[in-house]
């Protein structure tokens, strides 16, 4: 098992003929992800990735003809909300949106539609998810992973790679690594992903990577107190030195009115019994101290 992406993933790439879409589709395919279709309006009937993947004009056609159950979106911000609407309307169950720079109010309008369709959205502005040895959806470099039993959830991209690489180097493999995105309004929160990990029999330990802004880490910590008792869990929170009132690169990474500080998040996580590392490199050691065995 694993969460969100795995051997039963039948992936549709929205924007497969674009520069980003094509580049990452190749990487995903090379990793072993089953890419069953791509979409690119006006290019229906073509074939992408050296003729291996059929391209459709619409998601509905692609889903009907290929049985795609997951999609990943690489279209520009101006068209990304529409791409999400199209995917959930076609019955795609899990949608990853990699696109950065979608206005927050657009995402406010997207979310009720996603909920009504019973779909799950991960992102936007996220690196996707990888279940090592099974499938990768998004842009996380394959080289950082190792198969194993630690679930990783993070708001960042490269910081996730940093932590995961350190786990891999320490001999600790991962069940699934999920980047939920750095925007203020995202489809899946830390808590949503923790719930999935808690139900996954192959995930035996959890790493939560957070950063300043919002209260997602605090909400996850409050839930973990009751539901992750006995599960080895370690966290890292970026932005201890971030000044108030400045957006630190991610649209959602901002301390405002004294809320959303790293200190508050670290305190909430520690109060929930979760060990918080001071550096990305310490995360592995914190898991090992809680009984996770390197292989």
């Amino acid at each position, binding site marked *: 098992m694993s969460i969100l992406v795995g051997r039963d993933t039948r992936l549709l790439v929205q924007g497969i003929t674009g520069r980003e879409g094509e580049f990452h589709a190749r990487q995903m395919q090379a990793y072993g992800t089953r890419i069953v279709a791509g979409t690119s309006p006006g290019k229906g009937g073509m074939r992408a990735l050296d003729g291996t993947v059929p391209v459709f004009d619409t998601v509905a056609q692609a889903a009907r003809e290929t049985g795609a159950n997951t999609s990943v979106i690489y279209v520009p*911000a*101006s068209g990304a909300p529409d791409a999400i609407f199209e995917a959930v309307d076609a019955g795609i169950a899990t949608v990853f949106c990699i696109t950065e*720079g*979608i*206005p*927050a*109010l*657009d*995402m*406010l*309008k997207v*979310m*009720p539609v996603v909920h009504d369709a019973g779909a799950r959205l991960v992102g936007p502005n996220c*690196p996707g998810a990888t279940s090592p040895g099974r499938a990768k959806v998004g*842009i*996380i*470099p394959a*080289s*950082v992973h190792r198969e194993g039993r630690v679930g990783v959830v993070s*708001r*960042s*991209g*490269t*910081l*996730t*790679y*940093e932590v995961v*690489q350190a786990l891999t180097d320490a001999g600790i493999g991962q069940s699934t690594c999920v980047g939920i995105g*750095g925007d*203020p*309004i995202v489809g899946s929160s830390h808590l949503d992903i923790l719930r999935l990990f808690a139900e996954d029999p192959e995930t035996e330990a959890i790493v939560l*990577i957070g*950063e*300043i802004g*919002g*209260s*997602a880490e605090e*909400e996850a910590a409050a839930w973990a107190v009751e539901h992750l008792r006995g599960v080895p869990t370690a966290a*890292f929170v*970026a*932005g*201890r*030195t*971030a*000044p108030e009132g*400045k*957006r*630190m*690169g*991610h*649209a*959602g*990474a901002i301390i405002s*009115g*004294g809320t959303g500080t*790293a200190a508050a998040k670290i305190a909430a996580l520690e109060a929930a019994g979760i060990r918080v590392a*001071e*550096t*990305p*490199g310490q995360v592995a050691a914190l898991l090992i101290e809680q009984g996770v065995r390197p292989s």
Partner: protein
Amino acid sequence: MKLQEFHARELLSAAGLPVPRGRVASTPAEVRAAAAELFAVSASQVVVKAQVLVGGRGKAGGVKLAATAQEAEAAGSAILGMSIKGITVRRVLVAPGPDIAREYYLGAILDRAAQRILLMGSAEGGVEIEEVARQKPEAIVRLHAHPHLGLLDYQARSMALSLGLGGPHLRAAVAIAKGLVRVMVENDADLVEVNPLAVVRETGPGGLVTERLACLDAKITLDDSALPRHPELEARRDLDEEDPADAEARAQGINFIHLDGAIGCLVNGAGLAMTTMDLVKRAGGEPANFLDIGGGAKADKVAAAMRLILADPKVMAILVNIFGGITRGDEVAHGLVEARAVQSREVPRVVRIVGTNAAEAAAILRAAAFETASSLEEAAERAVAAVRRAQMASATGSPEATEARP
């Protein structure tokens, strides 16, 4: 992006909200003329307000009342040119100084956790809402607007009545509440705040005193991601008040925030960039900036980032931390070599490049004799050590560390 008060007032006014008409002035003579005009149309006093994007103008003396045009001119002289939190005041707003009966707070923000627009109101107006939230949280009324429906009439009425704005004020209060949410949606704002919203007394002909609602201050913050579709708002960016480095960073597509320390940071990815700053601090140093070159940066962008960092004279060492994914390590290494060839001054730098094409990057860096590190902790420690060496050298008068290149 924050809007200046006078721009925020324009947006509210355009949406039909009752905002007393003010004028912007940039010289004391203009202040006097604007005040004279307001006095001519019945104002009994005027307020002269510094137009800066930092908070605390009142405390800093940037807001003054005046009873005559002459007094207004003097207030203008005092405020124009003054420095508020390091920002020089270039413009003031001259507005009628109303007779305030009661003050309220009304603001709309993005509620991240609820994924809704949150309208907040309080009868404790005129003070910061964060302060009210701390001292008297029960004094804040909260309502969520549905993303597709906006603020409904009954919600606006409920807000008005909760604040005690019933009876003769109900209709105006409902229009203001709905207007705030509309301004937020139409302009893609993160925050639209009126503080204070006030009941003001006006004396009409024959000495008849009437009360009405007025928006006496306005604060609007726009969603940067939405600015591309609002060129009219982008045009209101205050370049005078912006650090020139910020403007250059924006032009280059680099996320850059200037800080006070001595260690310049060049990183790919926002989370990793924050982490790099945190580890600099942990190693005993202070970061000079947050800098994220984004994904897939090429050599020219790396060179631009190095220029931004070196433009800060406080920078005594540079830490480069790249985790290659989409970004290729060798591209970054080439950029570092290019930047060094044309840089304005020499500072020690520690480079850590891992991930995609790290081996190629290492070869380039070795050939160019860059100091490298393998872990982030090690890189941070070395950068801090380099600053200490440079500080020692300058204390003993050795030119070694900061010598300008020919």
